[in-house]
C-alpha cells in the first residue's frame, strides 16, 4: 500500500495553504533582498530637522531650481538659492536695510554711480572679485544672444536697452572697471532706487574665465558654478537634494552661524511637506487651506508673512471689449466685497483685503507709502453699482448683457475666488460671467493675445520701490496685458521714473493710485500673505517681500 495520503478536497486545501505560507515567506525574503541590492545603487539622505552640534538645518524645496546662472534666472526658487550662494555689490541685512556687500562704499548720483570693492571679497576658488566680474556679468545679461528675461532690470544703466535690442555692441554699456577695485556706472537717467536694484540676482558678478570654460553649462551643476556668497553648494542631486555649506572664502564669514543648509527634499506637495515637519525631518513647512486645520489642532504657533504681491482682476481695455466701458468697471468695483472675499472665501490667515494696487509694505517719504497717501476707499454700494450698470448698458447700446469671459488659472484658491465672484456679480448685478480656466502657459497666451474680458492676475515686486508697481499700467509696459492707455497716468509714471526728489515721486505714485481707483483700471482682490510653521529652536530667519523668500544667512539654532 502507498503510504502517502491520497489527494482529497480537504487535504488538498490544507497542503495548498501550507505551500502558500512557504511561498509567502520565500517572497518576503526575496523582496527584501531585492530592495537591499537596489538601495546600493542610490545615495543616502539627511537626518533630522535641526542639529545644533553640527549647526545644520534641513528643509524642503518646492521645486528643482530651474536656473542658477544669475544672468538668466527668473524664478523665486532659483532666487532663493542664488541669494545664499552669491552676493552683489550691496545686500540686505536682517533688518531689511541695504548694507555693503562686495562694495565697501559707494556713491550714487544723478548721472553716475561709483563703487569701491572691498579687499577681502573672494570667489570660492580663492581668487579676488574684481570690478571686471561685474562688467562681464551685466554685459552677458544684456547680450541679445543670452536672451535673459530679466535684462530689463539693468535698463537704468547707460545704453543697456539699446544693447539688449541689438542696436549697440555690449562694449558700449555704460559700465567701466576703472581698476580692479573701482566700478564706474553711468546712468541713462536719474534712478532714485538704484541701490535697491543692486541686490537683484541679475546684478550679481560672474567670473569671465570660469563662465567661458563651462561652455554653456554655467550653473547646471554644483561644480559648474563659482560662488561668492555666505554659502556654497556642496551637493546637488537633481530633483532630490541641494545641500549648501558655509563658504570659507566669504568675507563676512564670522557673521554666518549655520554650517549647513540642507534642502533634502524637493516636492511641491504641501501635505507631504507638513508630514515631514511633523516627523521632525524639516524645520519649516508652508501651510495652505488644506492643512491649516491640522496645524491649528496641534496648537502650533503659526507664522505669518506678507509676501509683497498683489492679486487683482485685470480688465481688457482693448477696443470692442465691453470692459472698455468705465461704468461697467465701476459697477463691478462697487459690487465687490474684498473683505468677504479675503476673510470668508479665501479664508487663509496672512492675506489682506485689496484696497490699492500699491501694497502696504512699500516705503514712502518718511514712513509707509500707504500711511502717507491712504488709498481711496471703496464702500460696497449695490444701488450705485446698478445705476452705473444701467448707464453702461445705454452707452454700449445693449439690449441684454453678453456673458463676460473671466480667464483664470487652475489652482484651488483661484477656483474659489472666480466661482465666488461669478456668483456675486450674478446675484448683485445680474451679470453673467463665463469662467475660462486655463493652465499656466495657456492662460499667459490668452492674456498676451487679449482673449479675455477679465483675468485673475497677480503682480510681485522686483525691487523695493513703488515704481515696481507704479509703471505697470503705463501705455508702453509690455506687462500691461489689458492694454490700458491713459496719457495722464503715463505722465505721472515718467515723473516718478525721472525724479530723485522723494516728495515729487511719492506724490506721483499717489496720483497713479487715484487714477487706478477712479477709472477702475483694475480691481485689487488681495495682498498675498503666507502662513507657515517653524521649529521654535530655529531663530533669525528673515522673510522679506523683495528678493529671497527666506534668508537663512543670519539664522541660528537655539538650544
Amino acid at each position, binding site marked *: 500500500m502507498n503510504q502517502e495520503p491520497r*489527494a482529497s478536497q480537504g487535504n488538498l486545501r490544507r497542503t495548498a495553504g501550507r505551500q*502558500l505560507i512557504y511561498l509567502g515567506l520565500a517572497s518576503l525574503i526575496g*523582496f527584501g533582498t531585492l530592495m537591499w541590492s537596489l538601495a546600493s545603487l542610490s545615495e543616502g539622505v539627511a537626518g533630522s530637522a535641526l542639529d545644533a552640534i553640527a549647526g545644520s538645518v534641513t528643509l524642503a524645496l518646492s521645486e528643482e531650481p530651474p*536656473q542658477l546662472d544669475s544672468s538668466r534666472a*527668473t524664478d523665486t526658487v532659483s532666487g532663493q538659492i542664488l541669494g545664499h550662494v552669491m552676493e552683489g555689490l550691496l545686500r540686505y541685512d536682517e533688518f531689511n536695510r541695504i548694507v555693503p556687500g562686495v562694495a565697501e562704499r559707494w556713491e550714487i548720483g544723478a548721472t553716475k554711480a561709483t563703487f569701491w570693492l572691498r579687499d577681502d571679497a573672494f570667489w570660492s576658488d580663492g581668487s579676488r572679485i574684481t570690478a571686471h566680474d561685474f562688467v562681464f556679468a551685466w554685459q552677458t545679461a544684456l547680450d*541679445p544672444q543670452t536672451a535673459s528675461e530679466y535684462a530689463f532690470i539693468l535698463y537704468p544703466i547707460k545704453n543697456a536697452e539699446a544693447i539688449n535690442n541689438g542696436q549697440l555692441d555690449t562694449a558700449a554699456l555704460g559700465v567701466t572697471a576703472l581698476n580692479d577695485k573701482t566700478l564706474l556706472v553711468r546712468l541713462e537717467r536719474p534712478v532714485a532706487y538704484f541701490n535697491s536694484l543692486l541686490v537683484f540676482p541679475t546684478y550679481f558678478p560672474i567670473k569671465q574665465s570660469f563662465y567661458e570654460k563651462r561652455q554653456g553649462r554655467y550653473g547646471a551643476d554644483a561644480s559648474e558654478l563659482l560662488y561668492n556668497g555666505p554659502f556654497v553648494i556642496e551637493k546637488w542631486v*537633481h530633483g*532630490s537634494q541641494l545641500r549648501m555649506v558655509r563658504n570659507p572664502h566669504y568675507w563676512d564669514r564670522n557673521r554666518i552661524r549655520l554650517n549647513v543648509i540642507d534642502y533634502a527634499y524637493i516636492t511641491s*506637495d504641501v501635505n507631504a511637506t507638513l508630514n515631514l515637519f511633523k516627523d521632525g525631518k524639516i524645520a519649516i513647512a508652508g501651510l495652505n487651506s488644506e492643512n491649516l486645520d491640522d496645524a491649528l489642532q496641534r496648537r502650533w504657533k503659526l507664522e505669518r508673512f506678507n509676501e509683497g504681491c498683489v492679486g487683482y482682476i485685470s480688465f481688457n481695455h482693448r477696443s470692442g471689449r465691453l470692459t472698455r466701458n468705465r461704468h461697467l468697471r465701476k459697477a463691478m468695483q462697487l459690487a465687490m466685497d474684498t473683505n468677504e472675499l479675503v476673510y470668508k472665501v479665501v479664508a487663509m490667515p496672512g492675506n489682506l483685503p485689496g484696497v490699492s494696487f500699491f501694497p502696504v509694505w512699500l516705503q514712502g517719504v518718511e514712513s509707509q507709502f500707504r500711511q502717507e497717501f491712504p488709498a481711496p476707499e471703496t464702500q460696497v454700494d449695490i444701488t450705485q453699482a446698478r445705476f452705473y450698470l444701467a448707464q453702461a448698458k445705454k452707452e454700449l447700446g445693449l439690449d441684454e448683457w453678453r456673458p463676460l469671459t473671466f480667464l483664470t488659472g487652475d489652482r484651488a484658491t483661484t477656483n474659489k475666488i472666480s466661482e465666488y465672484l461669478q456668483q456675486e456679480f450674478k446675484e448683485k448685478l445680474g451679470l453673467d460671467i463665463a469662467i475660462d480656466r486655463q493652465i499656466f502657459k495657456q492662460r499667459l497666451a490668452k492674456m*498676451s493675445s487679449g482673449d479675455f474680458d477679465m483675468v485673475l492676475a497677480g503682480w510681485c515686486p522686483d525691487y523695493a520701490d513703488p515704481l515696481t508697481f507704479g509703471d505697470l499700467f503705463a501705455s508702453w509696459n509690455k506687462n500691461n496685458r489689458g492694454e490700458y492707455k491713459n496719457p495722464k497716468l503715463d505722465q505721472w509714471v515718467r515723473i516718478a521714473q525721472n525724479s530723485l526728489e522723494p516728495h515729487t515721486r511719492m506724490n506721483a505714485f499717489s496720483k497713479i493710485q487715484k487714477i487706478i481707483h477712479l477709472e477702475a483700471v483694475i480691481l485689487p482682490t488681495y495682498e498675498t500673505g503666507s502662513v507657515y510653521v517653524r521649529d521654535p529652536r530655529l531663530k533669525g530667519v528673515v522673510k522679506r517681500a523683495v528678493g529671497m523668500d527666506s534668508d537663512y544667512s543670519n539664522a541660528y539654532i537655539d538650544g
Partner: protein
Amino acid sequence: MANSRTNKHAYVRYAVLRLIQGAITVWLIATATFFAMHNVPGDPLMDEKAVSPEIRKNLQAKYGLDRPLLEQYGIYLSNMLRGDFGISYAQENRSVNDIIREHFPVSAILGVLSIVFAALGGILFGALTAINRNRLPDIVIMFLVIMGISVPSFVFAALGQMTLVNVNAFLGVSILPVAGWGSVSHMIMPSLILGLGTMAFLTRLMRSSMLEIDNADYLRTAISKGLPPTRIFLRHQLRNAILPVITVLGPSIAAITTGGFVVELVFAIPGLGRYFVQAVQQSDYTVIMGTTVFYGAFLVFMVIVVDLLYGLVDPRVRLD
C-alpha cells in the same frame, strides 16, 4: 528536426516583424504628440514677465521655433534618430537625455519593486482566495481587492504617509522615513503603495484563473492518479494558473513605471514621472517629446517582450 528549424525561423521572423511594428507605433506617437503640442495655445518661451520682441526672437532662434512647423518636425525626427532629445526649456542648462538618464533609473527601481510586490502578492493572495473559495479568507481578501482597484493611488499615498507620521510619533522613533529617497527604508512605503492597485488586479486575475483550472481534465486525472497533493498544487494548479498573470505583467510594468507621478510627488522621489507631468504644464516642448517618446517606446517594447516570452512558454501559441 526540420519542424523545429522552421519553428525557429518563424519565431525570428515574428520577432523582427513585431519590432518593426513597434518602431512604427513609436513614430506615430512622436508625430501625434509633436503636432498636438504645437497646437495648444501658449509656448515654452512665454513667462509671467513679458519680454521684448527682440529677446523673444532670439529665444525662438535659439530653439529653432522660428522655422516652419514641418521643418521643425523634420529636424526633430532626425535628432531623435540620433538619440538627441534636445535641451529643456524650463531647465535651460540640462539636456533631456540627462534628465531621462538621471531620473528614469529612480522610476525604474520604484517600478520594479512595485511590480515584484504586486506579482508576488497577487499570485499568493489569488491562490489563497481560490482554495478557500467562499470562506472567510476569500471574502475578506476580495473585499480588500475591490478597495485596492477602486481607490486611486493618491489617496493611498496620502494615507500611507499619514500612517507613517503617526506610527513614528507613537513609537517615538522614526522606523520608516515619511518621504525622501536613497535607502531601503525610503523605498518600502512608496513601492507598496504604487503596487497596491496592480496587486489587487492580479489577485482577482489569479483567483479566477485558479478556479477555471479546478474543472480541468488534467487536474481531475492528477487527483485520481493519486499524485501527492503538494505536487498537484505546485505543478498542476499554480503553474498553469500563473500564465494569464504573466501576460499582463509586461503592460503592468510599463503602467506602473510611467504612472508613478503622484507617488513620486508625495514621497519627494526624484523620478521621471514628475518631469513628465510638469513638462506639460510648462509647455516644455523638448521634455514633453523626450519623455513621451521614451515612455512610449518603453511600453511598446515591454508588450513585445511579453508576447515573445509567451510564445516560448506556451507551445499552443502560434506565431503568425
